[in-house]
C-alpha cells in the first residue's frame, strides 16, 4: 500500500503530517486540471461527510436532538473494517471486490447494531426528558466510546494504517482522473443514497419514518410503533456512518479513535448547512462542505485555517439562514 499513500488527498485533520500532498507531476499540470482534480478530491471527502450527515439528519428528524456519538459510530466503522479485512481475507478467500463488499456489509451491520444499542441503553431512558439532558448524555456516550477505544486494551490511542482493500488503479472520465478509491467512494455513496431514498420514499417502513418525523404522537395513534421506528432510524443512520468509516479509511489510510470527533462535527455542520431533518439537504451540504474545505486547503494563506472553515460556515448559516439550504421553516408552538 505504501506507494499509493502519496497520491491520497490530505486528511481533514489539523496534524501537519498530513498536509495537502499531490504527486510531483501534478504540480506541472495546468490550472484547470488542478482545479478539476481538487474538485474530485473535494467530492470524495464530501461523500463521506454526506453519509455521516444523513445519520445526524435522520435522528434529528425522529427525535429532535443531535446524536453527538454519531461521529464515533463512524470511527467504529473504520475500525470494524480494519479488524475485519484480514480475517475476511483469511476465512473467505474471495477475489478483491467480493471480499471488499463483504467487509463493507459486515461493518455496516456492526455499526447498525452499535447504533441501535446506544439508543436502547442511553437515549431510550431519556425519551421524555428535556432535550438538553439528552444532549449531555450524547456527549457522555461520545466520550465514553472515544476514551474506551483509546485504551490500550481496546484499539490503543495510536494511529493505525487502514489496509488496502482494492487494487490501485486510475480511471479517466472526461478530463477528470479518479483513482480506484475515489471512484469507489463516489460510486458507493451514490448507490447508498439511492437505496436510502428508496427506503424512505417507497417502503412502508420509510413511510412510517416520515410519519414519525412529521408528528410522532399522531404517528403512534395511527398504529406506528415509535420505539421500533426510532431503533430502525438509528440502525440505518449508523450503517451509513459505518460505510462512511470504511470509505474514509480507504481514502486517508490513517485511522485513530479520535477521528470521529472532527469528521463528526463537520458532518453535523454539513447537515445544518443542507437544512437539518432534510435528507437531500444533508447530501448536498456534505458535498458542498467537502469541496469548500478541499479548495481552501489547497490555497496558500487559508490552508492553515482549514479546520475553522466548517465552523465559520456553521455560524454564518445559523445567523443568516438557520433553516439551511434546503430546509423549510418550522414554527415553534408554545
Amino acid at each position, binding site marked *: 500500500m505504501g506507494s499509493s499513500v502519496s497520491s491520497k488527498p490530505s486528511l481533514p485533520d489539523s496534524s501537519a503530517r498530513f498536509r495537502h500532498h499531490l504527486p510531483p507531476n501534478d504540480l506541472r499540470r495546468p490550472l484547470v486540471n488542478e482545479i478539476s482534480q481538487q474538485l474530485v478530491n473535494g467530492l470524495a471527502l464530501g461523500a463521506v461527510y454526506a453519509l455521516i450527515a444523513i445519520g445526524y439528519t435522520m435522528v434529528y428528524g425522529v427525535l429532535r436532538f443531535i446524536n453527538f456519538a454519531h461521529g464515533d459510530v463512524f470511527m467504529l466503522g473504520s475500525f470494524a473494517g480494519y479488524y475485519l479485512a484480514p480475517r475476511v481475507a483469511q476465512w473467505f478467500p474471495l477475489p478483491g471486490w467480493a471480499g471488499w463488499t463483504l467487509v463493507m456489509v459486515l461493518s455496516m451491520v456492526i455499526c447498525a447494531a452499535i447504533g441501535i444499542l446506544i439508543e436502547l441503553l442511553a437515549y431510550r431512558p431519556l425519551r421524555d426528558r428535556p432535550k*438538553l*439532558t439528552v*444532549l*449531555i*448524555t450524547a*456527549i*457522555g456516550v461520545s*466520550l465514553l466510546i472515544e476514551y474506551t477505544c483509546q485504551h490500550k486494551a481496546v484499539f490503543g490511542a495510536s494511529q493505525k494504517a487502514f489496509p488496502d482493500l482494492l487494487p490501485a488503479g486510475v480511471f479517466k472520465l472526461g478530463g477528470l482522473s479518479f483513482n480506484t478509491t475515489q471512484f469507489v467512494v463516489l460510486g458507493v455513496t451514490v448507490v447508498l443514497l439511492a437505496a436510502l431514498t428508496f427506503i424512505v420514499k417507497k417502503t412502508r417502513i420509510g413511510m412510517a419514518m416520515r410519519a414519525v418525523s412529521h408528528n410522532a404522537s399522531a404517528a403512534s395513534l395511527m398504529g406506528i410503533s415509535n420505539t421500533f421506528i426510532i431503533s430502525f432510524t438509528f440502525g440505518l443512520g449508523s450503517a451509513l456512518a459505518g460505510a462512511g468509516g470504511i470509505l474514509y479509511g480507504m481514502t486517508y489510510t490513517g485511522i485513530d479513535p479520535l477521528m470521529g470527533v472532527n469528521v463528526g462535527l463537520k458532518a453535523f455542520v454539513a447537515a445544518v448547512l443542507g437544512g437539518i431533518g432534510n435528507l437531500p439537504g444533508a447530501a448536498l451540504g456534505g458535498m458542498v462542505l467537502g469541496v469548500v474545505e478541499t479548495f481552501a486547503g489547497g490555497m496558500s494563506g487559508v490552508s*492553515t485555517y482549514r479546520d475553522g472553515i466548517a465552523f465559520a460556515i456553521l*455560524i454564518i448559516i445559523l445567523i443568516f439562514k438557520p433553516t439551511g439550504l434546503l430546509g423549510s421553516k418550522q414554527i415553534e408552538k408554545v
Partner: protein
Amino acid sequence: MQLFLKAPRALLLIAIVAAVAAGLCADLMNPYYRGVVIDIGIAIILAVSLNLINGHTGQFSLGHAGFMSVGAYVSAMITLALRQSMGADQLAWLFLPTLVAGGLVAALAGLLVGVPSLRLRGDYLAIVTLGFGEIIRVIFQNVEAAGGASGLSGIPRMTGLAWTFILAAVAVYVVASLVNSTYGRGFIAVHDDEVAASAMGLNPTRYKVTAFVIGAFFAGIAGGLFAHHKTSITPQVFDFMKSFEVVVMVILGGMGRTAGVILAAVLLTLAPEFLRSVAEYRMIIYALLIIFLMIARPQGLFHFERRKRSSAA
C-alpha cells in the same frame, strides 16, 4: 444559597481576608499542594462563571475553554510585553489590571458569541459555542504573536493563593448576588421558560448576552490566572475537553446551584490527584458519570432539597 442572601458582603469580606491570610502563609506550604489549591481556585472561578450561563440562564455553552484561552493569551502577552521594560515588583502591581484586561477581551468575545446565539436554542447553541471554541483555537494556532502551535512560554509565575481566592470569592459573590437580585431573577425566568419570560416583559436576549459577557469575563480572569500559574500555554490546552471538564463540574454540582458547583469544582480538581494510578480511566469514569447522572439524577449529585423548577431545560 440562603447564606449569600443574608450577608453576602460580609461573606465576601471574610473570604477575601481568608484568601490574603492564606496567601501570607503560602510559603509554608509544600509547593505541590499550593499548586493544587491554586488549581482548585481557578476551577471554582470557571465553574461558577459557566454556571451563570449553563445553570442559571439555561444556555448550554460548550465553549468555556475558548473564553478562558482569550483571557490567558491576552494577559500573558501583556505580561510578556511589560516585562521588557520593568522589574518584578512593578509587574506584580500590574498583575490585577493585566488579568482584568484579559477578562475584558474575553468578555468582548462573549459578546461576539452571545449576539449571534440569540437566534439559537439548546443543541444549536451548544454546537455554535463548541465551534467558536475551536475557531479561537485555530486562530491562536496561526497567530505568530501568540506563538503559533507551540504557544507562549516563560510567563512569570505571578498567580498566588491570595489573588486566586480573592478573585474566586469575587466571582462567586458577583454571580450569586447577581442572580439573587431583582434584575437577576430574569436569568432564572429565561432559563425556566423563555416565551413566558418575554410575555412578562423581560428581554431574554439581553439576559442571555449579559450572562455570556459576565461568564466570559470571569473565564478570562481564570485563564489569566491559569497562564501565570502554569507559566506556559499552548492552544491545545484549551480544547473541547477543557470545556467539557467545566461542564461536568456544573452538571455534577447541579445546574444553577452555586454551593454544589463549587463543591464539584473542588472534588473534580482533587480527584485526578488522588486517582493518579488509574489516570487512563479518568475520562471513561467522567463519561460514565455523566450518562449515569443524566439518567438517574439530572438535578446533580449535591442537590437534596426538592425544587419546583426543573434542573435542566
